[in-house]
């Protein structure tokens, strides 16, 4: 199927964006988090919010059923934000649920069936013990043929990492630099679950040991810390704790409007000019274990629709559920040649001030990964960066074009969006 090269039949713009605090919140339901994100989005609308203008609601959520014992969540969160009786639809594509919900909203407006759409995503994950979270996430794999083999989600990406290391010579140290970079960004994001650099994290651990009268760790550098089996234990070799995104509660919301109505909400809309989505088989059923084919296809569709190339993209939020996933994402998106992405964090290319800033929000790694919200929260970050509203983590210079890359499962779903600022 060749990429669709025509633009959307009707222009679509983001006119408002907001997100909840990301973290672990024992006293908040998924619904509460959704309301928190919605309120921030509503307050951020330059010309105020008219509830009557909203035509439909799409909500990304992976598994409130298993995480919270609550199914059929779209009407509930729509009620909570006062938008009944709008049609409310939950979208589930594992960790790509949010990005696919965004695409559903884009398609609803582009088709002419809706003018204004609320797109949200949420996940309330920390209520379950870690083993049950591991089981729930593993259910996004193939439970007939993959999970009986013992694959967990870190396990899948660890296996991808071994294939990549074997083929291209990457080492676990290269992946540690991805974590260092994303924590450096997350330290500048007040919404991030881990709002600290790894250096600060280390100092905290040393201070805690000092207070308890325990022997002080001998780390001389962040890399010492990351090599310490106690501080940074193996999760699924070669991935350690700091290669993995955390278990997170959080939500994010966007208001989309037909481009010809965006002016009712803001004079500074961000236009969605490219959208692509593709699907793939179980990991073992793919020819190449070092690239996500669905991401390549989704990116190709989005670039063709937008009429831009990878080189034109100023910043990107990519799906770094694990450090190796960021490396592969930057290759699948065409930013770097296959086998060349793994050194880019260490070399500073993907840093906030680098040539191709990746995950300025801190990424899933540091900002947190409430799975159904992540694809929407990526768009919240590019919205802020493109409007110059990202505060201390604002990238230098202008951001006229940005991209989001959201993956479900091991790449069974991938969805890519391209955003443009025109004024």
């Amino acid at each position: 199927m060749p990429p669709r090269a025509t633009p959307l039949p009707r222009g679509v713009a983001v006119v408002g964006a907001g997100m909840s605090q990301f973290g672990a919140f024992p006293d908040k339901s998924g619904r509460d988090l959704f309301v928190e994100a919605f309120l921030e989005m509503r307050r951020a609308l330059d010309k105020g919010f008219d509830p009557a203008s909203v035509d439909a609601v799409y909500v990304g959520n992976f598994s409130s059923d298993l995480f919270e014992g609550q199914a059929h969540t779209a009407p509930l969160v729509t009620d909570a934000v006062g938008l009944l009786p709008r049609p409310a639809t939950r979208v589930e594509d594992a960790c790509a649920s949010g990005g696919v919900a965004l695409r559903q909203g884009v398609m609803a407006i582009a088709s002419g069936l809706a003018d204004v759409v609320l797109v949200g995503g949420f996940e309330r994950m920390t209520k379950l013990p870690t083993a049950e979270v591991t089981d729930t996430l593993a259910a996004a794999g193939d439970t007939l043929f993959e999970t009986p083999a013992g694959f967990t989600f870190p396990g899948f990406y660890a296996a991808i990492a071994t294939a990549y290391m074997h083929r291209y010579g990457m080492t676990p140290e290269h992946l540690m630099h991805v974590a260092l970079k994303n924590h450096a960004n997350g330290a500048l994001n007040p919404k991030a679950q881990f709002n600290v650099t790894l250096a600060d994290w280390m100092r905290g651990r040393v201070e805690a040991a000092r207070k308890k009268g325990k022997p002080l760790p001998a780390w001389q550098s962040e890399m010492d810390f990351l090599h310490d089996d106690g501080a940074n234990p193996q999760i699924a070799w070669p991935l350690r704790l700091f290669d993995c995104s955390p278990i997170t509660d959080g939500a994010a919301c966007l208001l989309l409007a037909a481009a010809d109505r965006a002016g009712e909400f803001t004079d500074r809309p961000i236009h969605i000019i490219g959208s692509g989505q593709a699907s793939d088989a179980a990991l073992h059923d793919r020819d190449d274990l070092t690239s996500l084919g669905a991401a390549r296809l989704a990116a190709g569709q989005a670039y063709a629709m937008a009429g831009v190339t990878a080189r034109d993209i100023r910043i990107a939020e990519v799906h770094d559920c694990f450090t190796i996933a960021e490396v592969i994402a930057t290759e699948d998106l065409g930013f770097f040649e296959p086998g060349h992405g793994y050194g880019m964090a260490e070399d500073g290319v993907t840093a906030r001030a680098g040539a191709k800033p990746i995950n300025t929000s801190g990424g899933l790694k540091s900002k947190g990964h409430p799975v159904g919200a992540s694809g929407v929260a990526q768009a919240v970050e590019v919205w802020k960066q493109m409007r110059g509203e990202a505060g201390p983590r604002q990238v230098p210079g202008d951001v006229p074009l940005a991209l989001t890359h959201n993956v479900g499962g091991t790449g069974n779903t991938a969805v890519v969006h391209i955003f443009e600022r025109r004024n």
Partner: protein
Amino acid sequence: MPDTASRPFTAAAFNQYLAEHQLMAARCETCGALHLPPRAICPRCHGDQLTWQATSGRGRLAAFTAVSIVPTALAAEGHGRDNPYLCGIVELDEGPKISARLLGLDPRHAAAIQIGTPVQAEYLTRGEGDRQTTLLAFRA
């Protein structure tokens, strides 16, 4: 379970073969593609005429991991932070790849494990009576 020729192309039939210590794939009669796990529809030519075909059970390691933070099913087998297990993807000599447990390699020294290591299928029995299942594994 009916005889080999008429078994459906389902996970249950595949697992029944595992219980009989056979790793069976589905061969597309139309285009010749070999599918593992089995499929009722060939994704290459879209044909629906398939037959079961025994594999050699021989292959090479294509990707692997040693899992330390384990799911509940593996915790019940005694695995955990201090007792990781190995799983991975094996490419059979016949071409298809499959996910499986890995045996005969040391999960505590995963860095020494080589992609491309030759492996041979084995069958692990778990549970008892009506709840007995057979899992696919490969031994180096």
